[in-house]
């Protein structure tokens, strides 16, 4: 049984088939990239997995559990974190508190305990901060710890979003275009971090990406989509040589 599985996943908006009977599986500890032209349904698949959209039909399984009916906030509790294509950070909060929100799925304190800030809450807070500090160190975010998001440049925000997802200590992470808007060096850094996530933190990665050099460097397998359908699946080389993929990108 696969670690993560989507079966016949469909998302229709009226007559538009954004995602059409897509099935794929992800093995534990692998990096899977989803590629495809604009409007192919890549981000829609992510939004289906993280339950922002409800699938028209199809089922999603994670660790052999059907998660199709789990509410959006429950997905993160299961250990699936994500980033967004157009960064969705908490603008008017500091980097540190953004990252601490990532720890939300691990917080177990009750409202009345928090109102009184009992010793238990204080202990839990310190533990959260200790974990967050590890991520800050891993992604070199020390200079920005106490800065407001609204004053930070795009590239840094991109990394902070990744950091926030990592703070939740996910088992599976969904990266929506991790390199968009980054320059060559930043993309390089990103590719190292993605590989570190897999090898050092043991996180399974699914990412949507346009930058083929990044895809080639990090992915174990690639899925190519067009018009909501799977065109090809396999190693990066196989997919790039597939005639349907070439046709979709270059026009036939």
């Amino acid at each position, binding site marked *: 049984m696969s670690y993560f599985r989507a079966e016949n996943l469909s998302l229709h908006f009226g007559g538009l088939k954004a995602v059409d009977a897509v099935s794929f599986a992800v093995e534990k500890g692998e990096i899977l990239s989803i590629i495809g032209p604009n409007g192919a349904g890549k981000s829609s698949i992510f939004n289906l997995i993280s339950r922002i959209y409800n699938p028209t039909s199809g089922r999603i399984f994670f660790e052999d559990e059907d998660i199709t009916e789990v509410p959006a906030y429950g997905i993160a509790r299961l250990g699936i974190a994500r980033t967004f294509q*157009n960064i969705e950070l908490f603008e008017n909060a500091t980097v540190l508190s953004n990252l*601490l929100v990532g720890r*939300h799925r691990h917080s177990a304190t009750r409202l009345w305990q928090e109102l009184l800030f009992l010793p238990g809450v204080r202990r839990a*807070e310190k533990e959260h901060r200790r974990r967050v500090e590890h991520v800050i160190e891993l992604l070199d975010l020390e200079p920005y710890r106490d800065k407001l998001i609204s004053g930070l440049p795009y590239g840094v925000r991109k990394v902070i979003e990744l950091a926030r997802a990592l703070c939740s200590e996910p088992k599976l992470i969904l990266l929506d275009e991790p390199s968009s808007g980054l320059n060559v060096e930043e993309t390089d850094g990103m590719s190292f971090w993605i590989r570190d996530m897999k090898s050092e933190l043991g996180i399974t990665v699914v990412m949507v990406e346009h930058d083929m050099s990044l895809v080639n460097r990090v992915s174990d397998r690639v899925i190519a989509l067009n018009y909501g359908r799977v065109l090809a699946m396999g190693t990066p080389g196989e997919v790039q040589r597939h005639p349907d993929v070439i046709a979709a990108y270059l026009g036939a």
Partner: protein
Amino acid sequence: MRFLFKTDYEDDIRLLPHSGYLYSYGTLLVLLLIAPFVLSSYLMSQLVFVCIYATVGVALLILTGFTGQASLGHAAFLAIGAYTAVYLQQFNVPFPVYFIAAGLLTAIIGAIVGFPALRLQGIYLVIATISFAFIVEEILARWESVTHGNEGMRVKTLQMFGTAVPRDGPAFYFLCLAVLILIIVGTLNLLRSPTGRAFVAIRDSETAARSMGINVSLYKVKSFAISAGITGLAGCLFAHKLSFISPEMFTLQLSIEFIIVILIGGTFSLHGAVLGAIFIVMIDPFLTYLKDDVPGMVAGVAAALGAGGERAAHIESNVAALASANGLKGAIYGIIIVLFVLFEPLGLYGRWLKIKLFFQLFPLYKRATFKRQKIYVKSERNR
């Protein structure tokens, strides 16, 4: 300028980041404690109102400032707290019990109001809360067996531990001050723990909050309940301070006053609630001054500029008519809101921070430090 060198996670958690805060807040507390023995009874009464308004301001900040859910219904929550307290007082229920009961009942009603609010955003939420406030006002006027309708209800003197606490004595002031301080400390505790961060997350991006495992609906309802509950507690004190309550005291205008409290004080920090409360409480004496003195002064100036006696008297009566015109208060409130939103969106506390930073960095202060920049457009489609 002081640089904090953080060596412990505790440095990020503690309420007073360094000893300087201890001295300044300690001084403020001492001043507040000796105030009743120094200030006139009029100023003391104003100070009690500042405490009550600031309590409501903190409540509204939790909901509007930190969770991002606007409300124009807080006068109704205040009314529910006030009427609950006065109703229970008739049956000789002791003060601590009906005080807590006022808070709890209002919190429950706040949670119920929160449920329909889950599907509403922005201006629609404001409309929903206004309608809620009108419904409450109408119920208070019609449910005569409990509320005595438009006749209103007389509030008996507060009895605590067998002694009377008159509404204009120092003991009542200390009670209001203690409630305010406890609420502020509780709110600060909340804001530095997961619940507070969840509120801020919901304010800034619901989609991201959801995908980080925050149950957005639950936290919105929690925010409504906490905010309403605190307002209910303030309502109980409000009723005692006024010693008489009737439905027409809890109108839309009062809700707008509460919004002004946080808009003018600053919506990003609890300091804003206190500063805004001071501002709104001082508007009334200012308007009285406007009515009493300004017409005479204008006439005096006109006379000095060469206007004849009859003409000066004419000007005086015109200005007096203007100063005591109906709706002048509403107009002034409106102008104040517009001016603050346009020119000082961070409120009085924001202005204070700017002044502080100006002196700390002198002469290197940059005006752009507090400018919010938006460098890309957020996607609205996932809302």
